[in-house]
């Protein structure tokens, strides 16, 4: 894809986060060259919804999540959270705002301080902001631990290394929740976990979302996981958004050749479904230092032609809340089996 465009953005009051023309570039050691990590993407998140950002390594999904938090500051574009332009905020104002937007990271063990007790880790954000008395803070931290399924009596005085990966991720979730955020950005929160534990954490996130009225941005490479938790999904490729759609529609009727290929590449736990080599993508993702002209997916796209090299496709509407950035979108017919 490769597309830009804002046709998919909503105009109502229920938008909690609106990102427009987000641009993130990093300098390289070589003079004058830049890594084009995220190039002009726009998306929004409605109150109470889960937006999935999915794509392979190097597609810019994690960079996008971090740019929303302003770590690091995006090179360009706008990030509006609850009506406030984050890219214009500095110092204390930005710090304050970050209490409303929290993050959960991929590796739960390395994101917890190994030398501190679990109860102190979870109470730390309250301490930083001077919320309540010490007793109130501990009480709040205990409640939050209980909400994520960790027994505060047993666990509070222990340290992270005494817990499994799944339990550490629960502690990370508790720490993110303790300040009552309105938006949580989850960056590959279950990728480091075994499937049985992954299921527990995914169920927990769904429960907490309902219980605390949260809005989530869920970043992951695993399409099945993303589908399970998301209301809408944006598929990213090489710093661009290819396709945005309600989760069920995206998987039932993918319109972008990349989405189709991605869905077909997933190994299905069903031996009656034979691996389909016919729609295999060839090659690998190009370097973001010198991305292809026009549509960034064209070098691997089975339906690319001359126009794809010249013009960058814009996101166009192809269904209810369904947008695709492609000059040659996949026809609906014959696609129904892609989701199976």
């Amino acid at each position, binding site marked *: 894809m490769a597309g830009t465009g804002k046709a998919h953005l909503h105009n109502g009051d229920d938008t909690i986060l609106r990102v427009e023309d987000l641009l993130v570039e990093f300098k390289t050691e070589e003079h004058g060259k830049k890594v084009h990590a995220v190039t002009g993407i726009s998306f929004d998140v409605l109150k109470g919804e889960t937006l999935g950002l999915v794509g392979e390594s190097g597609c810019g999904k994690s960079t996008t999540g971090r740019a929303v938090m302003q770590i690091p500051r995006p090179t360009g574009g706008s990030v509006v959270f609850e009506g406030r332009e984050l890219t214009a905020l500095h110092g204390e104002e930005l710090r304050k705002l970050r209490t409303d937007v929290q993050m959960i990271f991929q590796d739960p063990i390395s994101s917890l301080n190994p030398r501190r007790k679990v109860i102190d880790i979870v109470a730390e954000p309250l301490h930083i902001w001077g919320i309540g008395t010490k007793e109130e803070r501990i009480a709040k931290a205990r409640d939050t631990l209980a909400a994520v399924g960790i027994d505060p009596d047993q666990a509070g005085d222990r340290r992270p290394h005494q817990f499994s990966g799944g339990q550490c991720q629960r502690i990370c979730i508790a720490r993110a929740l303790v300040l009552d955020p309105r938006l949580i950005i989850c960056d590959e929160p279950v990728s480091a976990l*075994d499937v049985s*534990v992954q*299921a527990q954490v995914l169920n927990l996130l769904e429960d907490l979302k309902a219980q605390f009225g949260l809005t989530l941005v869920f970043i992951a490479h695993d399409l*099945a996981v993303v*589908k*399970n938790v998301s209301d809408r999904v944006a598929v990213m490729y090489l710093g661009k958004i290819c396709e945005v759609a309600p989760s069920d529609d995206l998987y039932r009727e993918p319109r972008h050749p990349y989405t189709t290929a991605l869905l077909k590449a997933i190994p299905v736990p069903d031996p009656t479904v034979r691996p389909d080599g016919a729609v295999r993508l060839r090659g690998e993702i190009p370097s973001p230092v010198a991305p292809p002209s026009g549509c960034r997916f064209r070098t691997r796209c089975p339906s690319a032609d001359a126009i794809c090299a010249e013009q960058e496709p814009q996101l166009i509407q192809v269904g209810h809340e369904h947008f695709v950035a492609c000059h040659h979108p996949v026809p609906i017919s014959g696609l129904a089996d892609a989701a199976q």
Partner: protein
Amino acid sequence: MSTDHLLVVEDLKTHFSTTAGVVRAVDGVSFTLERGKALGIVGESGSGKSVLSRSIMGLLPGNNVMRSGSVKLDGHELMGLSRSEMRSYWGQTMAMVFQDPMTSLNPVMKIGKQVGEGLRRTLGMSKQDSIETAERLLADVGIPEPARRLKEYPHQLSGGMRQRVTIATALSCGPSLLFADEPTTALDVTVQAQILDLLAAQQHDRNMSMILVTHDLGVVAGRTDEIAVMYAGQIVERAPTASLFANMKMPYTEALMKSIPKLTDKAHTRLDSVGGRPPNLISPPAGCRFAPRCPYASERCLSEQPPLVEAVETPGHYFRCWYPVGSQEYIQAVRRRESLAAAGGI
């Protein structure tokens, strides 16, 4: 034992002595593998699946390892062989592809030299011959411009290309058995599909046996003839691939399958997750090792360890459970759970 059994493993145990006690990483594993067939070994972290493949191949170093049982390859007993005796099997008879291609390749050696190393050392090829063969091998595994790649270093290649190089290296001396230990876990999904296609094609073309070790039931579903599911150091279910998926017997396999999010399910489908986590392998449970987490466990399961038995109605399908999925006792346990849930007011 018929002659087409390439690998016969009997009651293989691999224990590690640690300061905390003896870790029973692989605890009595038996299976056979026919020539030209692919076996999938599936399990979660700590199930012993990687230790099993390394133990068979004799790759576990150190003097804290205790191995017992029997591993017969082509009729030759491998247990008790010295490292130098094992070396004669590596490359020509058995080879392995590891998870992370960046750590299994030497970063300061050119690709051509690495792929050709086995050819020179094991097959005694001349330098010139080894380079020509390496170039052909790289072409076989789908690397474009193999002649140029021979002169490059691993860091100049992408992750998928590096894994193709390790596959070419593993295949170089024509092994009859290839171990692939999580060969695609470090790769993206589109590249994973390419590598799995490649392994399947090479296995077929060379009439090679393959053991594919993975945590992902999806990876083994379409690409193996047989699957062994491991839990806490033991095989808990082993069956022809179609039979395993069509007719799961072991509640652990069922739980694993149910906890995978599926693309065919609607968004926000509640995942049926199993609580708890795998047991400590220093002092595993007395009875069935899955019993403490099993929703259908009864008293017998907690005290008496079930043996690996063959299903009556589907020969070749083995499982380690007193009350397998579908049995009378299982159905009663499901009903008990349902009535408990109903009584709980859910």
